[in-house]
């Protein structure tokens, strides 16, 4: 028996899926997440951890470059699917798993791909893709160099310029926040949406305020590292989208909201975290109230999402962990947002 084939098969039975949501592809993202939960397949947190790259939606020109760079960083064995129709999800995931288990194909690919990543692909990636930054001094050996700047402790320390997003777990689709970091404190921030959706996209959340609020809550709890509550919120959201809500569902939502609201640990963690002119705790409370309202009655219009300038302003002075919480709490709607607003 061929050992590699055996191992490939075993691994392909439960591949890790890296989900790259595209602005305008929310319906596909939701379908993929629901399908993954049903199959028990995990979501990968980074390209290195992933076997299957799922692009949810039709990426524009800039996002396509990012997709290529991300694809380049997936270790073999790997498979890639681009989904535009929620109905295709199950079939396409099966196809991806079949590709992963296909020994000959993966071997050929592994052979073909081995060797260091080409410089060019990485430049692109550093520019848009997520984890590396570009400094003012220009890259040295392809690496960003840091420059100096005042910091809050009176030390003039090195700063690096890093783009965050659009490939981060529980991150709004297409959002890129360019930050200047000192240690992990944000000195400057600038937010933009890469390839915002074309005009005339249908709003998937129309008439589904409860699901939208639950989705935002799930992403916030995910960023806060509370896996259990996040998974439950996601499940309730999926239930809501797949069928008509009943009384039992409403009770479960209320239980979840009560649990989040009563959590002392979460309150302790969120206390005093400023997010612009409000704070993260208040934003969470607003979100919980919105969930309750949406579940209770007929659809209420969602509260207006923040503009990107306000978001960037709220991020300055936060550290990286707080930045993630603020973004998740404000939850800018990148599907309707304008293109680019700087703030320094």
């Amino acid at each position, binding site marked *: 028996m061929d050992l590699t084939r055996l191992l490939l098969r075993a691994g392909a039975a439960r591949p890790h899926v890296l989900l790259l949501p595209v602005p305008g592809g929310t319906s596909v993202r939701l379908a993929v997440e629901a399908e993954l939960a049903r199959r028990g397949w995990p979501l990968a947190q980074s390209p290195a951890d992933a076997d299957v790259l799922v692009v949810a939606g039709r990426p524009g020109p800039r996002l396509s470059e990012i997709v290529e760079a991300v694809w380049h960083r997936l270790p073999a064995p790997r498979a890639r699917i681009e989904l535009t129709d929620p109905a295709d999800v199950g079939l396409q995931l099966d196809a991806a798993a079949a590709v992963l288990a296909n020994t000959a194909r993966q071997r050929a690919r592994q052979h073909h791909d081995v060797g260091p990543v080409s410089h060019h692909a990485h430049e692109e990636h550093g520019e848009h893709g997520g984890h590396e930054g570009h400094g003012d001094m220009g890259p040295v050996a392809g690496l960003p160099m840091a420059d*100096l700047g005042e910091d809050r402790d*009176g*030390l*003039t320390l090195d700063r690096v310029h890093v783009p965050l997003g659009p490939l981060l777990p529980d991150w709004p689709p297409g959002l890129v926040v360019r930050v200047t970091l000192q240690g992990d404190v944000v000195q400057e921030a600038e937010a933009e949406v890469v390839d915002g959706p074309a005009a005339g996209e249908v709003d998937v959340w129309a008439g589904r305020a409860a699901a939208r609020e639950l989705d935002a809550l799930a992403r916030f709890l995910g960023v806060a590292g509370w896996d259990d509550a996040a998974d439950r919120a996601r499940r309730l959201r999926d239930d809501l989208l797949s069928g008509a809500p009943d009384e039992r569902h409403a009770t479960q939502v209320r239980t979840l909201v009560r649990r989040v609201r009563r959590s002392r640990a979460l309150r302790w963690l969120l206390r005093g975290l400023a997010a612009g002119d409000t704070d993260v705790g208040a934003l969470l409370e607003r979100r919980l109230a919105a969930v309750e309202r949406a579940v209770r009655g007929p659809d209420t219009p969602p509260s207006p999402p923040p503009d990107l300038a306000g978001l960037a302003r709220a991020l300055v002075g936060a550290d990286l962990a707080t930045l993630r919480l603020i973004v998740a709490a404000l939850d800018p709607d990148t599907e309707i947002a304008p293109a680019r607003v700087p703030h320094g």
Partner: protein
Amino acid sequence: MTLQLFLLVAAALFAVGLYGALSQMSIVMIMMGLELMLNGVIVATAAFWYYVAPGETDGQVLVVVVITAMAIEMAVGFAVATAIYRRRQVDMTDDAADLRG
């Protein structure tokens, strides 16, 4: 294994550390040199304890003293480096030569 062998190792560590402490310019690297020298002292002290006077505890106590000295050296070294850096953004000894009394 003999006392001489252990002491030779200690001497080698000490000499390497000495070279580093003398030749390096960065404060952090100089501290690494000093730490290596103390490292040699630890080996020598422990060897002396074992091969010369294992009945007494003085050798062990001396090792404790050296370890503490290392910790203090590190802490104060970094505090001074931070203080100098705060004032002038330097972490090289040559740039701080005017601190000579």
